[in-house]
């Protein structure tokens, strides 16, 4: 497939990239735009490491063709802290020292922010539901759960 110019809106900035339109958004972010905070883990929507927001919804960028992102507002881990929820979640994450290896955590945070944007008082069951697609091989789940509750409290 040939390369086309596609204009993306990433973290509030317009970016034009020349890539094949079926290239997953993940690789455009990472390799073309060098926004490497978004991670590759599986390439098959199985792990959540690549989670970003498109118009406020959490999506797996490994399985989202870049063409589908044209015209959408894309937020990545590099930009999520500009928002109220993102900032609260990052602070809660740091307050509890959630991270271990950290590789999954961009995706965890993006999923957590999307959850809290839609539900300011999530229950444990809500968290299991919303975070079920995000693997953490270091198993930081106890703290992920606690940090989401902390962030919810700070946003209340």
């Amino acid at each position, binding site marked *: *497939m*040939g*390369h086309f110019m596609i204009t993306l809106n990433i973290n509030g900035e317009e970016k034009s990239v020349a890539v*094949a339109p079926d*290239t*997953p958004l993940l*690789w455009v972010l*990472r*390799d*073309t735009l*060098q*926004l*490497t*905070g*978004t*991670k*590759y*883990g*599986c*390439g*098959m929507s*199985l*792990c959540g*490491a690549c989670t970003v927001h498109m118009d406020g919804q959490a999506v797996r960028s490994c399985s989202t063709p870049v063409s589908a992102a044209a015209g959408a507002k894309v937020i*990545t*881990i*590099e930009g999520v*802290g500009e928002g109220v929820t993102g900032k609260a979640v*990052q602070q809660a*994450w*740091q307050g509890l*020292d*959630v*991270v*271990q*290896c*950290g*590789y*999954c*955590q*961009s995706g965890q*945070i993006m999923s957590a922010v999307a959850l809290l944007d839609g539900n300011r008082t999530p229950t444990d069951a809500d*968290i*299991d539901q919303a*975070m*079920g697609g*995000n*693997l*953490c*091989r*270091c*198993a*930081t*789940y*106890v*703290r*992920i*759960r606690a940090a989401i509750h902390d962030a919810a409290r700070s946003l209340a």
Partner: protein
Amino acid sequence: MTRPIENHSRRRFLKGAAGLTLAIYFPWSFAQNAAKREAPAATFEPNAFLRIGEDNAVTVIAKHLEMGQGTYTGLATIVAEELDADWSQVRVESAPADASRYNNLNWGPMQGTGGSSAIANSWEQLRQAGAAARAMLVAAAVQRWQVPADSITVAEGVLRHTASGRQASFGELARAAAEQPVPEQVRLKKPSDFKLIGQRLARKDSAEKTNGSAIYTQDIHLPDMLTAVVAHPPRFGAMVASYDAEPALAIDGVVEVVAIPTGVAVLARDTWTAKRGRDALRVEWNESAALRLSSARAFEQFRALAETPGNVAREEGDSEAALGSAARTLEAEYDFPYLAHAAMEPMNCVIRLNGEGCDTWFGAQMQTHDQAVLAELFGLEPEQVRIHTLYAGGSFGRRASKGGDYILETAHIVKAIDGRAPVKLVWLREDDMQGGNYRPMFHHRLRAGLDAQGQLVAWQHRLVGQSVAAGSPFEGAIQNGIDATSVEGAANLPYAIPNMRVDLHTPGDIGVPVQWWRAVGSTHTAFSTECFIDELAQAAGQDPVAWRLAMLEAHPRHAGVLKLVAEKAGWSQPLESGKNGERRGRGVAVHEAFGSFVAQVAEVTVESDGRYRVDRVVCAVDCGIVVNPDVVLAQVEGGVGFALSAAMNEAITFTDGNVDQSNFHDYSPLRIADMPRVELHIVPSTAAPTGIGEPPVAPLAPAVVNALAAATGKRVRRLPIGQQLSG
């Protein structure tokens, strides 16, 4: 390609028949010169482990890989404690690969991270380093203020002379401190004077790992760098017979296709194009020497082997005779599958050749070994291989690669293109899952005898499984046919049993590459021994905790954690019952690994259809002095989750030589809904610290399976548990 430097040939790696073994002599002067060259003049760099700048920053040089276990934070705490630094002024930097300064003292002349040894081997070394720097800062203040040394106090990064009201920060004294002689002897603090050690200090890597700025190997971009994705053979032992590169080269952005010993590599400017090129390649494989293993048949062979005596790892009394005269005997067999490490960041490596050798970027876990492997391939001296150790997105033992598999693969690609461009090798998840170096499959057979009073009088434990030490730099662990890492946790069973025999078969011709996996031998020995002990306690009509304690009189640290966990878990009170149709159970296990002692009580709920969940895990740990209790807790939480993941679901299986699993749909790590509550209780200690990364993994599976047995009466003896309770 560069020519090797003459004169450094003292450092040599001998290729032995069984693999790479280390025989190293260290050119100390080379390392010291290198250190001098690197030190900026205005900075105080009293030793290899820290640097204080005039900007008042204290930079701790970490010789160990940060792969999530919190070692950067722990190592920095030890330095900061003796230095009396303020935690906020401390930052951490990765040490270069240089075994003359940064060897793991537990490993001898080799730099690397593993065996839960980072804090243990660094403890004295970093206390000395911090104390020496502090003494030099004090000496500088003495000189500047002309007051006696004992009238100066140091706290939170500030030196003070109270009588005159003078004070100075580390940064203000850095330049003067650098002029002071390095003290030959320093006094270390008494543990009762510790201010930072034992506190919950914030992790040093939290901020950059929550805002996306932390750099992993996967994130490295170098000018002109090419990204490589490799077509690997479908079976271990297969080789490239022929390939057609045209369909790959036809893809816009594919730069080159090269054959390497482990497959065919496609190089492109970006990862996705390289992957598309790899997928488009047509490769014919020569499978004449390929693996044809099937897991089911391998287990049959292991079981047949277990019928015959193996190499004896421990022999006390006459277990055969004691079994013959026992009032009651029990026997059990346990099966363990291959396991993948499945770190969230798949294996990857960046290598760039330059005029003076090569630069490499990756989550290096055995720097000295990796230097040797790369030096040999490139015809360099090991010190010409510069390793920039980056954060690793998990390892669990995988990045301490025997033979350097993925590192060497990167080097072969660089070599195949004559070093024209830097190369980043990216293993996609499937490459990683099917890339081998697994926790070996094992079969255990245990027999035991109880006398008429219910005392355990005979114990026989036979293990069958591949050696992980074979072909590694740790081959010395193999003595008289016994790989110590195969029988750790079994040969040193702590229980007082008068007649014991532990023996081992090590089938050598399996053809599946195996490697250490978080907690190594204890991943299977803790399970078989602690499940069988539990079964025996039940047969003897005894309480599982009391029965163990009665046999642990000579092992007070095992007994200590066991008593503590029983008390905190409320072992003597009945477990709260479940809702309608739910059965609940509680199980216990205790195990020593890497010098640390861990006991766990797991509480489970089993539904009427056999589905189960682990509700709560209470853990007691004795790992000596605790540097950071919150990091210990994190490792316990993570270790519990990692071990539960394997116990519930994980298996790498083979069908006719093919790995049956490829990605997270068929090799499925624990997700958040299955994570239990975790409680930690630490035994206070003044003993030197031991490790915490691996030990909490060991007792989890037996505690859970014992709990499931308590709930259902069914003893699971084959891991993973999977659907076995639903039948």
